[in-house]
C-alpha cells in the first residue's frame, strides 16, 4: 500500500483531443503562436491569387530600391526583383519543404521506432545500432554528404533534412513504445485474445501518438531552419527559384549597401519558427499530463502559510509537541482539497503516538505540515499552530525553521530509495545531516556517521558509509534513514510509514530497532502507518484519521480492543488476522468522501449504519468518552458514560 502516492497530484488524465485544444488556446503564448502561424500559412496559400509582381521578373533599372519605394513596398533586390513577391513565394516554398520534411521524417522514424520498440530483442538491437551509427554524425555532415551524393537542389535538400531527422524520431518513438509495451494493460490485451497486430494498432499506437505529435511540433521549426540553412549555403533551391534561405544567401553579399535584402527574409524565417515553437510548447504542455496542473511548480523552502484561525487560546500543555487545530489544504485553481482539518494532538516526552488511517486520510500531510514540509504550491497551511515546547513553528521564518528541522524534529520517510539522494554516499548524507546543525570537522562528522550506522546495526559500517543508496538492500537503506533521523539526537521523530515499503521479515527487524532506540534515548515518535498490526507493536497511543480529521484517540490497546468510533470498529473488522483461518470480512461499503467535497456533518455518515439526521447536521465535536479517550461521534460505541 504505497500511500506516498497520496502526495502525487490527482489522476493523470489522458486528455481527449477536445480538451487538449482548449488547453492550447488557454495558453496565451501558444495561442499567439497559433494566430501568427495561421496567418502566415493563410498568406502563403493565397499568394498565387494576390496582385503581386512576378517573383522572378528582373528589372535592372530598379535595382536595390529601398523599402517603401513606389510599386515595391519592400524594395527590390540586386536584379530589381520585387522583394515582397519573392518573400511570399519563398515563404510558400520554405513552409512546404519544412513541413513535408517533417512528415517524411516522422513517418519513417515512427515506423522504425514503433517496430523496434514493439518487436524488441534482436530486431530492436540491430535497428537501434544502425540508428546510433547515423546519430554519431553531427547531423549537418550527414546532410552535406547526402547533398553531395544527390547534387544540390531544393528537393534533395528536403530529402537530406528528412533523412537526417529520422534517427531522432526513431529514438524518441522507440523509447515511448518500449514504455508502453511493458505496461500491464498490454498483457491484459494479450489475455483478451487480441493478436499482435491488433494490439499494436489498438493499444500501443494510441498511446504513442501524443509523443509523435509532440516530437513533430517541436521539430518542424527546426526542420524549416535546416532547409533554409542548406539553401543559404547554396546547396538547396537553385536560382532563379528562391526559398527564404537562398534569398538570405544572395542578400548576404549586399549586406553593406542594401541590408534590407537580407534582413527581411531572415525576419520572416524567424517569425515562422518562433510561432511554431510557441505553438509546439503549447502542444507539448497540453499533451503531456505531467506538465499540467502546476505539477512542475517548484516547491518553496517551506509550506505557504495563510492562517485564518490561529487555533485555540488554550495554554499549551507541557508536552514537547502539541498540535492545535492544524488545517492544511491543497489549492488547485478554484478547487480546494481539504487534506487536513483542525487536527489537534500532543506528544509527550518519549511517547510513541501512532496515526492510523487509510490512504488519502491525511496522515502524511499532517506529518509534513509539522515542519512546513508540504509542497507549496499547491499546499497551504490554512490554520492552527504547531507548538514545540510552547513556541509556534508555523510563525517562524524559513531560516529559523531550518534550524528546527533535523535538530528538534527529524523525519523518517517511507521509501528510502527515493528519499535518499542517489548520487551521494550514505556517509556523505549523514555527514551533511550532522553538520547542518553542529560545528564539526568533516573527519569528525564522518566518524560520527560511522558510529550512527553502527548504532542502527548495519554490518561493516565503515565500509557501508562509502556505499551509494542503490547498493544497499531496502532494509539497510531504511536503517540509514533512521540513522539520519537520529544524527542530532532530536527530541521528536516523525516517521511516515517507515516500514510500509519493506518485506515483513525486514519490517519486523526495523520495528524492533526503532522501538529499542526510542526507548533508550527517550525520543518521542509520531508514527504514521496504515497497518494496525504495526501500531500494536510500537505505539503507546493511537489516533485514527478519516477524511482529514482525527476521529478517535486513546491508548492503543483500549482503542483496538474496544473501539468507540463506528469507523474504527468497522476498519478493524476488515483486517485479516493470522490464526483465524478461512473467513469472510465484514467489509465497509462505499468509499471515503473526496477531499474537495467533504460533507458538512460527519464524514463517515454515508457509510455508517448508525447515522441519522443529527450526524449530518453539522460538524461533530470530539467527545471525551473516558480518561484519555476521545471520539468524534454522537453515539460512540464504547465508554458511554
Amino acid at each position: 500500500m504505497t500511500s506516498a502516492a497520496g502526495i502525487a497530484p490527482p489522476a493523470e488524465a489522458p486528455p481527449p483531443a477536445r480538451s487538449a485544444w482548449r488547453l492550447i488556446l488557454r495558453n496565451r503564448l501558444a495561442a499567439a503562436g497559433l494566430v501568427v502561424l495561421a496567418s502566415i500559412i493563410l498568406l502563403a496559400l493565397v499568394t498565387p491569387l494576390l496582385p503581386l509582381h512576378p517573383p522572378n521578373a528582373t528589372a535592372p533599372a530598379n535595382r536595390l530600391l529601398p523599402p517603401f519605394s513606389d510599386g515595391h513596398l519592400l524594395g527590390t533586390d540586386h536584379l530589381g526583383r520585387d522583394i515582397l513577391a519573392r518573400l511570399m513565394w519563398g515563404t510558400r516554398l520554405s513552409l512546404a519543404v519544412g513541413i513535408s520534411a517533417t512528415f517524411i521524417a516522422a513517418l519513417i522514424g515512427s515506423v522504425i521506432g514503433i517496430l523496434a520498440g514493439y518487436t524488441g530483442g534482436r530486431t530492436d538491437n540491430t535497428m537501434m545500432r544502425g540508428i546510433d551509427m547515423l546519430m554519431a554524425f553531427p547531423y549537418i555532415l550527414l546532410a552535406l554528404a547526402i547533398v553531395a551524393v544527390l547534387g544540390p537542389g531544393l528537393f534533395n535538400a528536403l530529402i537530406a533534412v528528412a533523412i537526417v531527422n529520422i534517427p531522432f524520431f526513431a529514438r524518441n518513438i522507440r523509447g515511448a513504445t518500449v514504455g508502453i509495451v511493458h505496461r500491464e494493460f498490454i498483457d491484459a490485451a494479450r489475455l483478451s485474445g487480441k493478436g499482435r497486430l491488433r494490439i499494436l494498432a489498438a493499444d500501443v499506437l494510441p498511446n504513442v501518438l501524443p509523443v509523435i505529435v509532440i516530437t513533430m511540433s517541436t521539430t518542424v521549426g527546426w526542420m524549416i531552419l535546416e532547409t533554409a540553412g542548406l539553401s543559404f549555403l547554396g546547396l538547396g533551391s537553385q536560382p532563379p527559384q528562391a526559398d527564404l534561405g537562398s534569398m538570405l544567401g544572395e542578400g548576404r553579399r549586399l549586406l553593406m549597401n542594401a541590408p534590407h535584402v537580407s534582413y527581411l527574409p531572415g525576419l520572416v524565417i524567424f517569425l515562422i519558427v518562433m510561432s511554431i515553437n510557441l505553438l509546439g510548447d503549447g502542444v507539448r504542455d497540453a499533451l503531456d499530463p505531467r506538465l499540467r496542473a502546476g505539477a512542475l511548480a517548484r516547491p518553496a523552502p517551506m509550506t505557504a502559510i495563510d492562517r485564518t484561525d490561529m487555533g485555540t487560546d488554550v495554554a499549551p500543555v507541557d508536552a514537547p509537541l502539541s498540535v492545535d487545530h492544524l488545517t492544511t489544504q491543497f489549492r488547485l485553481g478554484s478547487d480546494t482539497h481539504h487534506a487536513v482539518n483542525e487536527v489537534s494532538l500532543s506528544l509527550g516526552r518519549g511517547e510513541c503516538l501512532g496515526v492510523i488511517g487509510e490512504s488519502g486520510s491525511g496522515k502524511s500531510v499532517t506529518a509534513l505540515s509539522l515542519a512546513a514540509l508540504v509542497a507549496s504550491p499547491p499546499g497551504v497551511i490554512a490554520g492552527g499552530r504547531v507548538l514545540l515546547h510552547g513556541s509556534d513553528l508555523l510563525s517562524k521564518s524559513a531560516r529559523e525553521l531550518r534550524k528546527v528541522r533535523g535538530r528538534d524534529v527529524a523525519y523518517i520517510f517511507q521509501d528510502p530509495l527515493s528519499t535518499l539522494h542517489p548520487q551521494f554516499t550514505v556517509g556523505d548524507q549523514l555527514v551533511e545531516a550532522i553538520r547542518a546543525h553542529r560545528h564539526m570537522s568533516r573527519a569528525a562528522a564522518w566518524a560520527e556517521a560511522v558510529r550512527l550506522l553502527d548504532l542502527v546495526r548495519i554490518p561493516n559500517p565503515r565500509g557501508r558509509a562509502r556505499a551509494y543508496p542503490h547498493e544497499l538492500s531496502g532494509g539497510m537503506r531504511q536503517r540509514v534513514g533512521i540513522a539520519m533521523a537520529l544524527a542530532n539526537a532530536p527530541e521528536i521523530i516523525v516517521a511516515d510509514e517507515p516500514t510500509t515499503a519493506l518485506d515483513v521479515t525486514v519490517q519486523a527487524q526495523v520495528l524492533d530497532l526503532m522501538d529499542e532506540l526510542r526507548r533508550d534515548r527517550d525520543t518521542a515518535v509520531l508514527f504514521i502507518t496504515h497497518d494496525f498490526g504495526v501500531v500494536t507493536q510500537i505505539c503507546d497511543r493511537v489516533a485514527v484519521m478519516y477524511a482529514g480529521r482525527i476521529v478517535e484517540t486513546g491508548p492503543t490497546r483500549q482503542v483496538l480492543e474496544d473501539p468507540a468510533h463506528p469507523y474504527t470498529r468497522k476498519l478493524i473488522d476488515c483486517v485479516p488476522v493470522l490464526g483465524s483461518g478461512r473467513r469472510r470480512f465484514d467489509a465497509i461499503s462505499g468509499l471515503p468522501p473526496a477531499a474537495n467535497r467533504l460533507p458538512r456533518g460527519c464524514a463517515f455518515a454515508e457509510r455508517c449504519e448508525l447515522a441519522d439526521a443529527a450526524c449530518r447536521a453539522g460538524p461533530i465535536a470530539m467527545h471525551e468518552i473516558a480518561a484519555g479517550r476521545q471520539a468524534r461521534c454522537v453515539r460512540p460505541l464504547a465508554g458511554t458514560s
Partner: protein
Amino acid sequence: MTAYVFKRLVALIPVLLGLSIIVFAIMALIPGDPALAILGAYATPENVARLNRQLGLDQPLPLQYLTWLGNILTGDFGRSYSLNRPVIDEVLERFQATLVLAGAALVLCTLWGVLAGIVAAVRQYGWADRIVTFIVLVGISIPSFWLGLLLILLFAVELRWLPASGMYSVYGGGDLPDLLRHLVLPAVTLSAVAAGVIARLTRSAMLEVLRQDFIRTARAKGVGERGVVYRHALKAAMVSVVPVIGVQAGFVLSGAVYIETVFQWPGIGRMLVNAISTRDILLVQGGVLVVAASYVLFNLCADVVQHLLDPRVQA
C-alpha cells in the same frame, strides 16, 4: 572507472568502423566518374582507364573499401585534386580552426545555458524566469546565419568594435588578442541556439528534481535552501544535462558550417561546402570522417562525465 573507460573505448571500434563504412558507401554512391572529374571532360578513354587503375577503382567495392581503410589508418587520405595537396594536411589545418570556434562556442553555451537554466528554475514564474524563457525562445528560433549577419551589421559595420570576418587580421595580426577579437562574434552567434537548448533542459531538469522525495529529505534534515538547490538539486539535474551537452557538440559542429561561411572563418565547414561544389570527393570524405570521429570521441567524454556523476549508471 578505468575499466569503464576501457570498455567504452573498445566499444568505439565498431562505431568508428561503421562510420567509415557509411562514409565510404556514400562516396561510392556519388554518380559520375571521379577519374573523369579529375582529368576533365577532354580526357581520352585510355587515360581515364589508366587513372582508374591507379586509383584502384576497377576493383570490387569491398576490396576498394579495405584498401581505402588501410590507407586511412596509415594517415593517407589521398590527395585533393582541387587544392592539389594531401587531404590530411588540409583537413587538419582547417579542423584546428573549427575546433577553436566550436570549442569556444561550446564553453560559452554550456556556461550561460546552465546558468540561465538555474536562474529560471529558482525564480520560476518570476521576472528572471520570463526573461530567460523569452531569450531562450528567440535563441532557438533565430536562424544562426541571420543572427550572424545582424551582429556583423551592428558590431562591425555600425559600431566598428569588432572585425567582421576572418580568423586573424591580414596585416599585423596573428597573436592571441587578435584571434580573440575575431572569435567573439562567430562564437557568440554559434552558441546561441545550443545555449537555448541547454538552458531549457536545465530549467526543466531542475524543476523536475526539486519535486523529488530526496529534496524533501534534505529540507527535513535542515539543509539550507542554497545547499538544497546547488548541492542536491543541481547535481541530480546535471545527470540529464550532461548527455545533452554532448549532443549539443554535434549541433555546434553543424552550426559551424553556417557560421564559418558567414564570418569567412577558415574552418572545415566552409572547406566541405566548397569541396561539395567542386566535387572534390576525397576532400569531402576526409573532412566528414575526421569531424565525425571527433564528435564520437567527445560524446564518449560526456558519457564518462555522466558516469562519474551518477553511480547508478551501469558500465
